[in-house]
């Protein structure tokens, strides 16, 4: 297991290296001149030339790439062309926002999806089964932005239960310590603020988590049904174990392997969906950060932003693979 884990981690190096090359090359293809963008419409050609020189934009591709990689290796994501700030530092609040949102969306998807799947399988062909599978079907087919807008209209505007935008109440902003607002509110011991922050999470979390939730529910149900029909479960049942032991102790472990695959894949796509959700709910996340950077041709920020997302994606895959091996020792990777 340990050897496998180490091998798997080492494999990340070429993958990440390739990724830097791809993002770096693509960014070179974006039309337009960043020096012109930074200096504005009134800039003189001399000023533009001077800034290009200063930023190293005149250097050949490989030289620019080499500088980029060596900076990256020393943990330096560079400096934003637009704000002149350190990117790693500037990016964190946005990344924290996206992490908070996606983690909660995933927890929601897993918790609701897995339980709905289990109960549906367990009470196959019951009203509950039909209802939850119809909901799952609707959930899978519903575009994130549409659901988000409907939620906003119904729960924020009509019922006024949840706020329609942002991460916290602008009338009483959370004091940012880690920028993970739930944690920050808890750290400062402000329970009312913790409640408000959680409430801000609900609508975007549901919007973002619904598709994975539906997929997870369907996958759990079919996988569970298969396992429940297997001989060993019949044996356990014959021995007179109670239903919850059968399900949670014996069946779930085996039923869970395909579910983990789905969870892993969905966690990746969540990052994509997060950009849409963040836009609609005015949630300052990494998507907005990159989007802004694109409109200002802030190359270092675009590169770093994409790289960080890709890195997270790769890490999720790694965790999924390691989980397989941990849950089912029969799975060997040679």
């Amino acid at each position, binding site marked *: 297991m340990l050897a496998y884990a180490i091998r798997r981690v080492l494999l990340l190096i070429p993958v990440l290296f390739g990724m830097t090359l791809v993002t770096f090359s693509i960014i070179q293809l974006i039309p337009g001149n960043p020096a012109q963008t930074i200096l*504005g419409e*009134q800039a003189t050609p001399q000023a533009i030339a001077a800034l290009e020189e200063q930023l190293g934009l005149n250097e050949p591709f490989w030289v620019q790439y080499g500088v980029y990689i060596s900076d990256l290796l020393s943990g330096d994501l560079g400096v934003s062309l637009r704000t002149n700030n350190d990117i790693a530092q500037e990016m964190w*609040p946005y990344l924290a926002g996206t992490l908070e949102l996606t983690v909660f969306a995933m927890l929601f998807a897993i918790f609701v999806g897995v339980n709905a799947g289990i109960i549906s399988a367990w009470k196959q062909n019951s009203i509950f089964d039909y209802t939850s599978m119809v909901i799952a079907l609707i959930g899978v087919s519903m575009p994130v932005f549409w659901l988000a807008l409907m939620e906003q209209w119904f729960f924020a505007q009509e019922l*006024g239960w949840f706020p329609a935008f942002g991460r916290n109440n602008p009338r009483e902003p959370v004091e940012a310590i880690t920028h993970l607002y739930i944690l920050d509110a808890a750290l400062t011991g402000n329970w009312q603020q913790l409640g408000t922050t959680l409430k801000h999470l609900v609508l975007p979390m549901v919007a973002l988590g619904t598709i994975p939730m539906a997929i997870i529910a369907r996958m759990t149900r079919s996988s569970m049904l298969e396992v429940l029909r297997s001989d060993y479960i019949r044996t356990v049942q014959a021995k007179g174990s109670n239903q919850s032991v059968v399900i949670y102790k014996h069946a779930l472990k085996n039923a869970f392997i395909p579910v983990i695959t789905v969870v892993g894949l969905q966690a990746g796509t969540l990052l994509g969906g997060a950009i849409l959700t963040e836009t609609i709910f*005015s949630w300052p996340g990494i998507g907005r950060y990159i989007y802004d950077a694109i409109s200002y041709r802030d190359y270092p920020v675009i590169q770093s932003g994409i790289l960080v997302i890709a890195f997270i994606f790769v890490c999720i895959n790694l965790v999924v693979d390691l989980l397989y091996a941990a849950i089912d020792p029969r799975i060997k990777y040679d």
Partner: protein
Amino acid sequence: MKKAKMPLFSAALLAVFVLGACGGDETGTDGNGTGEQNNNGGEESSSGGTLIFARGGDSQSLDYASVTDGESSRVTKQIYETLIEFADDSFELEPGLAKDWDVDDDGLRYVFYLQEGVTFHDGTPFNADAVKTNFERWADPDHQYAFTDEGYSYSVYGTQFGGFKGDEGHVIEEINVISDYEVEFILSKPLGSFLQNMGMSYFAITSPAALEEYGADIDENPVGTGPFKFVSWTKDASIVLEKNEDYWQDGLPKLDGVTFQVIPDNSARLTALQSGEIDLMDGLAPDDAAMIEGQAGLTTFERTPNNVGYLGFNIEKEPFDDVRVRQAINHAIDKNEIINNIYGGLAEPAANAVPKDYLGHNDDVVAYEYDMDKAKELLEEAGYGDGFEFDLWTMPVSRPYMPDPEQAAVVIQDALSELNITANIVTKEWATYLEEIELGYQDMFMLGWSGVNGDPDYFLGSLLSTDGIPGSNQMFFSHEEVDALLAEAKTTIDPEERAALYEEAQLIIHEEAPMVPLVHAIPALAGVDTISGYVPHPSTSESLKHVEISN
């Protein structure tokens, strides 16, 4: 047993709803900006409340002179003050940090008499030295506080004052401190818009002590003399300001604080207003304006138009190099149809590049009337009776002067098809769009211009003089007589003389038709009806010192 497991699933759903239901009233009451929820309002009944102002984009910087976007100056307007202020709803000049000023007859020497007893938010006194330091900072790229190495540039200073220290066109020759509260500006040549420029939010005064303390980080640590003090800035989310208790004008500001909240999506912003999470929102879509009118508790505010949305011809390209073709297209576009369909009526038809009420606006210039027969005749004359095909460059983003560019392009395309003219709608990513029309890649394009200082030169000089090429004159309109008139108007001090020169220039421009001036749009805002004292300024940046939210 089976029942025992059911709650697992229900709990998940319940958790979602319970959370919402228990605190439901919080956002509900909060929102209408009423009494108890204004946490910093405390128990004092005289408290003016905290205003949550939602807008579509974040500020770029809080160092106002180094950026040109309206979202930045909207915030800095609260923190900083200029020597001269504009009246609440127009560009008329009023005393600001300067209580009075003198101009010599030749227009080369200005003396400003400063308010006494004003302090910056950091406690240091405002005086003539502070004024001198600030202006020299913008004028001289080598100044210790110019921060050019950190990427700062003061393009608006360059455009408004003819360049920078050492440049041939730079008009501010020297700034002399006569006494603590008297400062003198000596110009190398007269500048008609000098006093108007002094009112622009770009030229507000920062505490020199803060420039010393924060250096290039001044853009995130603004220290001015304004009615509100900077508290915090969470990027792409909110900028929090609090009341300046030591403000020099008695009884002001009335609010306890202002929060500028970013909500990029138009409909989400409106939802937030309707659900009471914010008090005031900018960028109300024309379609929503009518709906708001009928809603209890909400109200709309309209800004005086200070912009022009236009179609520009690249007059260096065929067939737009022929004035008859340009005039024909001017005749072919029904501005009222566009105003009704796209602006929801919130616009005035434009005859001219300069908005009405501007100095020198020529009321005798009448828009080309909508007349298809006339258009056909002119095209026939120019030899294009069978029509032609061209690319109509369409903006990829909506702007106050052009809320739905694509739809507008379709209307124009449709109108031109009646003349056998095929307009291919072309759209590009925004930054590329701006860059390429400056380079002249377009045949005909859609764009607009918003005023900042209420001076006609800002419109005519930028858009239609040869000096604007390459740059803001993307029609490549270059006309000797117009250039001479605009140049003379720029250096004339007497307002009447200036007006006459601009009026004459507009007649020639109208005849030459380098553009189709479409509309002067009326930007709308929406807010809760408990707001009082809010007057939207045509420049888009208004001080909120007179605003309050009552119960």
